[in-house]
């Protein structure tokens, strides 16, 4: 796959369709993947990678990249295409300045996931059908895909690309994932248990802002948390309330716009399951206002800037199932 992608990228660079290529390259370690922009065939040969570590959603970077001259090629995994559409809906970049290639994805793993299986000295990764082989300086170890996929990929919502100019490989289908199971489990707890659960999670937050910075829905020119006039600006949480508040407000700000790409949880250095906050909003929206998938189509009206006269009353919160 990587080879095909590089070859096609070179072709498009050469025939002038695009001026730059947005893809992935390895950082200090092979599992340490970072988004990168390539301008020449040589750079592509040398640095471009695409493997089971390339979880990064590249859509967000288009906001900045399309402000530059020329056209950019971007590779999009199925879930990235939802973010891509959502950003288009919000007029965050110029579609004309992007050439999008959809690429298949069978789920991604992470350095952390691999290390949790007792491996160290990781030097590479290969995929072959349902198997993922991790190379280390000591051994080659093969896993069944399901064993080492990230949580978000095990509950993947769609293998279908909702936006692209061309596809490499086959397109997939929208999946019937069980992504709301954990939310439902939390909902079934007592408020005290839920409070304890979230305190134990959110108290780990070190306010590194990684979740915000990586989030494709968080593309504000100026974030409210950085704006002293917003009344909620903060650099670090001073107490448990501020820890909570940051995450509630962040989740609320992306409610109805979050495509559930799962980047927030992926990058959290403290492993807080942040996606469970976003998924709660998605689940509520689906249940109360009808199924809505942000980014499924360009121009759709997000649930929070929409209404019907027959919407449920907020008091439904008191009467719903659970405690």
């Amino acid at each position, binding site marked *: 796959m990587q080879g095909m992608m590089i070859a096609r990228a070179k072709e498009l660079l050469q025939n002038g369709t695009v001026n730059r290529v947005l893809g992935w390259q390895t950082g200090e370690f092979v599992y340490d993947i970072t988004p990168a922009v390539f301008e020449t065939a040589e750079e592509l040969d040398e640095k471009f990678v695409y493997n089971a570590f390339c979880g990064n959603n590249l859509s967000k970077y288009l906001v900045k990249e399309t402000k530059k001259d020329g056209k950019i090629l971007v590779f999009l995994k199925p879930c990235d295409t939802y973010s891509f559409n959502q950003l288009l809906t919000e007029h965050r970049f110029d579609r004309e300045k992007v050439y999008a290639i959809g690429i298949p994805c069978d789920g991604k793993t992470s350095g952390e996931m691999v290390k949790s299986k007792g491996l160290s000295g990781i030097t590479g990764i290969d995929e072959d059908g349902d198997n993922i082989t991790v190379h280390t300086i000591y051994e080659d170890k093969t896993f069944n895909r399901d064993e080492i996929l990230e949580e978000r990929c095990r509950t993947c919502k769609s293998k279908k690309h909702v936006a692209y100019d061309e596809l490499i490989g086959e397109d997939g289908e929208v999946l019937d994932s069980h992504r709301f199971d954990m939310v439902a489990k939390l909902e079934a707890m007592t408020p005290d248990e839920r409070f304890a659960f979230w305190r134990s999670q959110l108290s780990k937050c070190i306010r590194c802002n990684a979740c915000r910075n990586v989030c494709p829905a968080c593309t504000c020119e100026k974030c409210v948390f950085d704006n002293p*006039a917003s009344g909620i600006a903060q650099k670090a949480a001073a107490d448990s309330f501020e820890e909570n508040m940051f995450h509630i407000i962040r989740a609320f700000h992306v409610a109805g716009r979050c495509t559930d790409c799962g980047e927030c949880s992926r990058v959290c250095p403290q492993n807080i399951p942040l996606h469970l906050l976003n998924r709660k909003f998605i689940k509520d929206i689906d249940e109360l206002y009808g199924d809505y998938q942000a980014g499924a189509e360009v121009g759709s009206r997000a649930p929070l800037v929409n209404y019907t006269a027959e919407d449920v009353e907020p008091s439904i919160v008191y009467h719903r199932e659970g405690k």
Partner: protein
Amino acid sequence: MQKIGVFVCWCGSNIAATVDVQAVSDTLAKEPGVVYATNYQYMCSESGQNLIKDAIKQYGLTGVVICSCSPRMHEATFRKAVASVGLNPYMLEVANIREQCSWIHKDKALATEKAITLGRAAIAKVQLNAPLQAGESPVVKRALVIGGGIAGIQTALDIAEAGFEVDIVEKQPTIGGKMAQIDKTFPTLDCAACILTPKMVECSQNDKVHIYSYSEVTSVKGFVGNFTVSIKKKARYVAENKCTGCGECTTKCPMKNVPNEFNLGLDNRRAIYIPFAQAVPKVATIDPNYCNMLKNGKCGLCAKVCTAGAIDYKQQDQVIEERYGAIVVATGYNPIKLDKFEEFDYSLSKDVVTSLELERLMNAAGPTGGTLLRPSDGTHPHTIVFVQCVGSRDTSGCGKPYCSKICCMYTAKHAMLIREKYPDTEVYVFYIDVRTPGKNFDEFYRRAVEQYGVHYIKGMVGKVAPRADGKIMVQASDLLANEQLHIEADMVVLAAAIEPDKSARPLATMLTASMDTNDFFTEAHPKLRPVESPTAGIFLSGVCQGPKDIPETVSQASAAAAKVIGLLVTAKLTTNPCVAHCNELMCNGCSSCERVCPYGAITYVEKEFRMPDRTTQLRRVASVNPAVCQGCGACTVACPSGAMDLNGFSNSQIMAEVDAICQK
């Protein structure tokens, strides 16, 4: 730092009996920023107001807090007072310590404590108040009426009568609308043409009224007082200023088989036509879909017979741009299509007609010259069945959920007219309910039943089936007698539901006027502002707002005209300064605000920004039109970055109030 004065009102004993006003002013005097605090018996009295004015002058106050009755009562009074001594009126806040404190609490200590808290919140807010200037915008002294039916005609005439220029845009070649097609009107049974056509003529003769017939609105820009509208005058291939309306061409044109839409396709017209004898403007129009000359350049007969030389086959559509201060929507209605109602066999049998078609069949200027004859064979019908509520009050999805309102009355009218003219004809009316509220309406309906012997049967018609011998079998249930009926009818008349004209939806988008799910225009307030759209400067006239009969339409038309005149006589519009504004540096251009704005006050502009690295960047940012914004604040919450804020109720002001209230 603000220099704030606090004025605590006793309101006689209304406040002072339960609130220790001295304690309130003493405590609030110690709040940061407060340089003067006092209390007085009646702040709203002349001497109370003078007290405030003197203090502003003496202490150089920059902000004023009045602890008194509800701001809904005297905020305006106090604003005027402070403005009279040069303080910006928006530098004043009122703490409601009467309705929301002294009147509801009995414990003086508690009430005093609460009054102090409310005063603190007002002080905290005033600290962040900014002087606001009410904007002014000029008003273009010209109105546009979209739709030339009776609603549009009445509105236009009333506006013209007040001395303002008014333009009517009508998409048909003539004004008159549905009323021109109607035979008689209920409950007086006077002929529609006799009362409508003089008004049409008045429109053409009043030099303040300008008619753009055969024209459509294609774009609307601007806002209340200052709309710019593009009107497309469709080519009619006849010079309006030359055509005398003699009608010679319409008798010579060889294309004889063009369905006549004025008679709902019940007869034919030529390719060049004048819709009806009293058309205004009385100018011929060539139908380009049928004219041989336009289609393949062969014929030209009309040009030959036209002594005025008015025929112009080369005429093009023309776009006119005009500015208006107010726009009235009067787009009217149409009966719904009945193809979906298979049980009534409307599309299969010529003798199953809609009520509007029946109007033409009974009209002296109609296809039968006013003699009621079956469309299929031209014979006199002896049994006629009327079916009410065809597609009205229909929640099955096939029709419309609402009551079309006019059908009960016009059906009674039809039944009565038929029985009057043809006493040998039996008339059956199947109804779900008969609804006749209105002046002399129920009396009218009772006459149909009691005096004219119309058979009213409560029940539904299940099946209408034409028989080979030309009879129509009507199968129905009589709910009161609880029996099935089989009637051999000669004609069946369907009271089809009415729906807003199809042009209304795209027009609403152009006007950013809101509509309900049935495509009726929404009024600014269902009870108190029924002839205005929530979008300032847009007014509603007639059925475009909801089903109504002619007298109601005319009342609303005149009401809309009164509103328009009220707007047009204003020299300048003072705008509410408590409107939203966008901090462009923070705006993402994401359109969230635009989507929740009920007034269409938000538009987007591409703007260049200097970046910190000295480059420039083109960004899409929101821009609020202060003349249109009403200050609800929906956008401020929809905005993810907080770029939108509301004057007078800013984020920081409200949060300061929250803090002051929650403070220990």
